């Protein structure tokens, strides 16, 4: 007799999804599916619109990382114009991109995953949330909220609003920063560094406490993909694409936008709206790759800022023998190192000469019919590819979103967790939350990933081999 388990909705993640676990005749886990249940259709309904509208429209793919879409879309627009984007505009875009990284990572670590990490995976589900965290650890919760608020405030200062700012445009950005605004942001940095240090202490404690248990949370070989700077440093806005294998060998390097998307094929399954991209030359199984904080720290040669580099050197030990870090649980730690790096880069940018230059926008008409914009979103590499006619009207749109690229890995991860914790064909609260945490580690953004999709509550159902539903778990 085999069976299937469903978890629906998955909570404290950014989107809508459910999880299904199928058992074989011996009651062992035979298959796990992370299913995204919503679809929105941007790639189709944007056809016929003008590329100038795309930053504003595609930002609405996701309210959590609208800035990522703003960046990728504006960069695709830059290519269509065929102009050199002013250096001040690039510095300002980078500033906004780092600010978003800070706010999104702070939300993921302190407010969404924090309750599991601090209160415990088995804590009472009624308390295991932001309100519970505030009640038990008010200082930590407040610090996390203020770190997120800092990122949002920088975005608001640049673009007049923290969510969906109509600020980056093909050719540059609409407005610059005053000296006073720059100083105002810099003044807040010491507190933010303090909070990220505190987060790092916390995650190191959690990792030590969990011991070998953390390897159950999705430790497996995969490829890693992301952008690196021209010198091989950690990069979130520009640079070139690099792909590394599980042993740390570099498979692709120096890949520019025109070639990057041809390396990826998007697989599809009938049971989810979320696609399964893979590295084309190796096929869907061996070509499984991961993106996001863990992947970026694995592929870069160094971070390029002093405090993040210090943390990165320590982080590399988790890989062992010079290999990449393969445990998915380390996404949390990687996220904090990235916040540290982003804060250091924000400080540098604000003091630099480029950001103070006055010209922030280059103006032109359609000069190329193809535009590809690649940028690192908090969750991983984001691709926007537009084909336009001579009037700038879109004839084809393709977007490959970070969370989709982690889809195969997330499925694998929950399979590993379910296999380990499932006992006696029964679902319990601890299993439910651990499986969900397996998803949370990737900080999936399902509004993005299915651009296409929306939110992501989750449910687990348990199914027998003959298709009978044996158990279903829901809280409430």
């Amino acid at each position, binding site marked *: 007799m085999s069976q299937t388990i469903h978890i629906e909705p998955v909570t404290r993640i950014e989107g809508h999804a459910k999880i299904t676990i199928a058992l074989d005749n011996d009651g062992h886990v035979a298959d796990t599916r992370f299913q995204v249940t919503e679809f929105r259709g941007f790639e189709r309904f944007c056809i016929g619109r003008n590329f100038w509208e795309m930053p504003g429209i595609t930002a609405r793919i996701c309210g*959590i990382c609208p800035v990522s879409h703003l960046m990728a879309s504006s960069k695709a627009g830059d290519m269509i114009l065929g102009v050199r984007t002013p250096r001040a505009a690039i510095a300002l875009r980078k500033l906004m991109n780092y600010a978003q990284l800070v706010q999104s990572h702070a939300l993921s670590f302190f407010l969404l995953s924090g309750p599991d990490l601090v209160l415990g995976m088995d804590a009472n589900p009624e308390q295991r949330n932001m309100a519970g965290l505030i009640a038990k650890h008010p200082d930590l919760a407040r610090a996390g909220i203020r770190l997120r608020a800092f990122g949002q405030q920088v975005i608001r200062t640049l673009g007049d609003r923290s969510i969906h700012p109509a600020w980056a445009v093909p050719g540059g950005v609409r407005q610059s920063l005053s000296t006073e605004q720059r100083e105002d942001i810099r003044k807040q940095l010491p507190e933010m560094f303090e909070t990220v240090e505190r987060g790092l202490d916390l995650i190191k404690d959690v990792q030590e406490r969990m011991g070998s248990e953390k390897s159950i949370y999705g430790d497996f070989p995969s490829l890693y993909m992301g952008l690196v700077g021209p010198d091989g440093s950690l990069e979130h806005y520009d640079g070139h694409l690099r792909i590394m294998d599980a042993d740390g060998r570099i498979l692709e390097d120096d890949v520019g936008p025109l070639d990057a998307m041809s390396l990826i094929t998007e697989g599809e399954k*009938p049971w989810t*709206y979320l696609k399964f991209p893979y590295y084309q030359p190796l096929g869907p199984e061996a070509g499984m790759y991961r993106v996001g904080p863990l992947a970026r720290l694995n592929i870069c040669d160094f971070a390029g800022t002093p405090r993040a580099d210090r943390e990165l050197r320590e982080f590399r030990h988790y890989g062992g023998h010079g290999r990449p870090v393969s445990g998915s649980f380390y996404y949390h730690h990687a996220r904090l190192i990235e916040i540290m790096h982003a804060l250091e880069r924000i400080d540098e940018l604000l003091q630099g000469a480029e950001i103070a230059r006055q010209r922030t926008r280059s103006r032109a008409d359609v000069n190329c019919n193809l535009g590809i914009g690649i940028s690192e979103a908090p969750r991983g590499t984001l691709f926007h590819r537009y084909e336009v006619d001579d009037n700038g009207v879109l004839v084809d749109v393709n977007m490959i979103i970070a969370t989709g690229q982690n889809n195969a890995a997330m499925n694998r991860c929950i399979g590993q967790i379910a296999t380990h914790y499932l006992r006696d064909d029964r679902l319990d609260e601890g299993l439910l939350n651990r499986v969900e945490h397996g998803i949370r580690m990737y900080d999936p953004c399902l509004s993005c990933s299915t651009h296409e999709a929306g939110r*992501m509550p989750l*449910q687990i159902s348990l199914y027998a081999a003959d298709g009978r539903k044996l158990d279903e778990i829901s809280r*409430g």
Partner: protein
Amino acid sequence: MQESSPNKSRPRLATVWLGGCSGCHMSFLDLDEAIIDLLQEVDLVYGPLVDTKEYPEQVDICLVEGAVTNLDNLKLIRQIRRSTRLVLSFGDCALTGNVTSMRNRIPVEDLLTAVYHEASSPIGAEAVEAVPALLPRVLPVHQVVRVDAVLPGCPPDVDRIAATLSALLDGQTVKLEPRMRTFG
């Protein structure tokens, strides 16, 4: 702050994310430290930020982000209406369909076959079992259930959210100033 048994006299607040981008929820989080005060006043009983799986009974206020796009949304919004005293359309997608409804001019089948190039993805018998079917057209919330108040904006900014919540929690009618009634 009480952290154990829920106090019956505290208002029960839910937030729901239907077809939208979660930008409205992010704007709600932009209350920043004021959230700490809010959570001392209300019980957050359902939503993406808490682990409750089933929409509970006797909810006082529910902020509904997003439009109604599929069968799951339809089922949930009807249940929300039955179990909630005050239902709010929270943001432009809930209010008008907004960006989410941009697909309305395209038949669902065309939409899916265009996006899933192999057309093996959520189309066909297995898909019907596995994922909720899309409605032919995205609907704003008020076309499906009665709505008690609306909060426009894409997303509504934090001042609007604070003004609306404080009016509702004081038992007042929501009266937003003209500058707070704009879309986009």
